[in-house]
């Protein structure tokens, strides 16, 4: 018997579970895979566009909530978002996240676009385009997912002084295609390779330049790798997240998962929640499929953080309906008209579909009635947000993950 069973191992689920375990609660995380944190760039985007680029999330979020009263941020007030950010910073303390709600940092993406975000690890902060005078964008010949000339060219279009260079440093010399994780592992473990990289970089960097590298500067030893490189070079260095496999996302996931383990939380990976035992308006157990059988996981409270359609937290049926597959919870926001626009980057009518929730983030039906008094929802499955357009996904996941822990702890005590 657990105090809380969390379904989903992404940012929302893992944060909720860790926060509860830190408070001494018996927690299990049931996760189909390892969660989507490792696919993210490792920054915490709270609100980047609404629909124009947002400079100050603290000012813009209350306006957004007035314009869209169903938006998840309507249930997640600014104090909570702020508490959640500072909790996250302490949970991943070695990565030294900086920033906040007062001014979005503007970071270059791997396509050379300008990307607003609220929190970034120390290793990315020097890439803030509000400040940098001159950029040198550097890639590796063997790393196929990062093209420095393309990044620099696009940044120049945005009025930023930037040039590009390609380094030969290769942890698997002779090979033409080496993944970012192989670079990261080599930089973690191999002092000689760290020197090779620093020396080659020192030969191309000019005084006054800030150096942007693909985000491969170590996993476990990331902060030390970044500091060492910067010291050897005598110039500011920052990382740019690349295509997955995402090294910065992996760092965050590793720290959160390790902290959960150390706090006594249980991770059950590869298991799929497929149903529930319910009665009297409560869930008594979630039914979980493992390698051989379905077994009930009993708890006082349950948190569903299984993600949106892309993660299987919501399922799009062939007839165009959307359902929540674990508890068959009511789904809100189904469009009347065409569900898709053929233009990929258009607003998509299906995108805001998800679970409507009450103040405590418990799913509600069409009449606003709580479905199960001890079932909570967090993260990408919440209705009425469009995280990829708003760049709001991390903020919503983090703050909703923390919000459910507060609601649960209040009820348990």
């Amino acid at each position, binding site marked *: 018997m657990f105090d809380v069973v969390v379904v989903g191992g992404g940012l929302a689920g893992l944060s909720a579970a860790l926060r509860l375990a830190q408070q001494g609660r018996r927690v299990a995380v049931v996760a189909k895979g*390892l969660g989507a944190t490792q696919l993210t760039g490792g920054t915490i985007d709270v609100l980047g566009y609404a629909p124009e680029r947002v400079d100050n999330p603290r000012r813009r979020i209350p306006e957004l909530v007035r314009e869209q009263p169903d938006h998840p941020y309507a249930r997640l007030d600014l104090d909570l978002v702020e508490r959640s950010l500072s909790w996250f910073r302490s949970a991943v303390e070695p990565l030294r996240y900086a920033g906040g709600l007062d001014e979005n940092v503007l970071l270059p993406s791997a396509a050379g676009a300008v990307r607003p975000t609220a929190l970034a690890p120390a290793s990315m902060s020097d890439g803030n385009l509000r400040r940098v005078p001159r950029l040198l964008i550097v890639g590796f010949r063997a790393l196929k997912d990062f093209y420095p000339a393309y990044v620099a060219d696009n940044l120049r279009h945005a009025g930023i002084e930037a040039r590009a260079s390609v380094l030969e440093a290769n942890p698997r010399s002779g*090979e033409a295609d080496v993944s970012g*994780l192989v670079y990261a592992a080599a930089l973690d473990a191999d002092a000689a390779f760290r020197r090779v990289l620093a020396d080659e970089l020192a030969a191309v960097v000019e005084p006054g330049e800030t150096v942007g590298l693909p985000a491969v500067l170590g996993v476990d030893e990331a902060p030390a790798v970044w500091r060492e490189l910067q010291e050897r070079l005598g110039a500011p260095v920052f990382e740019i997240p690349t295509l997955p496999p995402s090294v910065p996302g992996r760092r965050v996931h590793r720290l959160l998962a390790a902290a959960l*383990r150390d706090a006594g939380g*249980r991770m059950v*990976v*590869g298991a799929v929640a497929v149903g529930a035992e319910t009665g009297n308006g409560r869930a008594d157990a979630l039914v979980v499929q493992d390698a051989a059988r379905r077994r009930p996981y009993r708890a006082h409270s349950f948190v569903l953080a299984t993600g949106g359609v892309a993660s*299987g937290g919501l399922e799009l049926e062939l007839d165009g309906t959307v359902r929540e597959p674990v508890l068959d919870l009511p789904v809100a926001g189904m469009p009347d008209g065409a569900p898709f626009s053929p233009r990929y980057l258009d607003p998509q009518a299906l995108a805001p579909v998800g679970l409507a929730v009450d103040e405590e983030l418990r799913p509600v039906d069409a009449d606003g009635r709580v479905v199960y008094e001890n079932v909570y929802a967090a993260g990408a499955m919440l209705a009425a947000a469009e995280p990829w357009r708003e760049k709001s996904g991390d903020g919503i996941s983090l703050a909703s993950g923390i919000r459910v822990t507060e609601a649960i702890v209040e009820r348990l005590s």
Partner: protein
Amino acid sequence: MTAVRATLDHCVKCTICESHCPFSAATSLFPGPKYAGPQSERFRAAGRSPDVSVDYCSSCGICTQVCPQGVKIAEINSQARAALKQEHGIPLRDRLIARPSVTGRLAMPLAPLANLGLRVRPLRVAMERSIGIHRDAPLPPVARRTFQRWARRHRAPARERAVVYFHGCSTNYYEPRTGEMAVAVLERAGYRVLVPPQDCCGLPLQSNGAFPAARRYALRLAQALAPYARAGHDIVATSTSCSLMLKREAREILGLEEDDDLRVVSERTYDICEWLRDRFDEGTLPTDFSPLPMRVPYHAPCQQRGHAIGKPALDLLALVPGLEVVELDTDCCGVAGTYGLKREKYAIGMRVGERLFRLVRESGSELAVCDSETCRWQITHGTGVRAVHPIDLLHRAYGL
């Protein structure tokens, strides 16, 4: 088998499997589970393997566990390897090390000699040159007597309830002591332990791509155990890889979904720690453990994680006063059953295990805990630290 293959349509190329594959991180000979699996699979539709790199997949199964979309990557790759082996033939070495019950039966009468032979350098070098088993590979010494023989002579105490013990080849031929301790713990928990005659589950053959032979073994074992399952007995196992074979892998990978014996056996099969934890959860497990004042590192083997049951060994050992078990943040020991024994793969396996070895050494403990036998042998080989099954510590804590 088609059900496994159909899951590849769910692949969104997110590369989480690539980032967690311990083998592609250690060698460029294996390009990674996504490349070898969902990506290459479309070229295999024509019936031919596009390359041989999938032979360097170890079947550790981590890719399937971490996939957020439910793609059966390791299973697809196992099937692809079997197809590859069918095209190119299976070397004698692989046929030999994939039959632990045969090698065990052959070696046991010569146990002292055979075990001495394992330590004689020139013999090992000759063995490496002739059949390709690496000279340093951690081959376990064979026991003098089988566990089956012990079990036949063992006087089971009278108990109302009974449970079946599936000991697997390693317990029978190499580590009978693990089986003896498992029986003692189960008896202490209030059960009579039935040990039906049993042979290999077919897993090593499956990992080496010999599917027809693997199917014969798996079905024969299912046939032997099915009457007990049908009579309502649970089947518990100390080998996490062999029990995973019975639970899921034989049905999925070998395509034996239709076999009814295997189905009932699968539904009744439990890892021993999982089963004991269930007894604890229902309040029937005796918990009068004596204190074990020690701090030991624990490695959850890949195949254990494949059960998707969490880590019951940790839950159980947490009940023992004074015992502090430190779960290591590690992926794989590198041996993956028989993979790390092979001449061309030994060094890769040792590189994969490096992190685990370092953490075990740094723990300063004289003992490491791990559920799977081949992983224990690899840990001891890589660190010099004795590695035991969790049941060993429970056995001690019960004062047995």
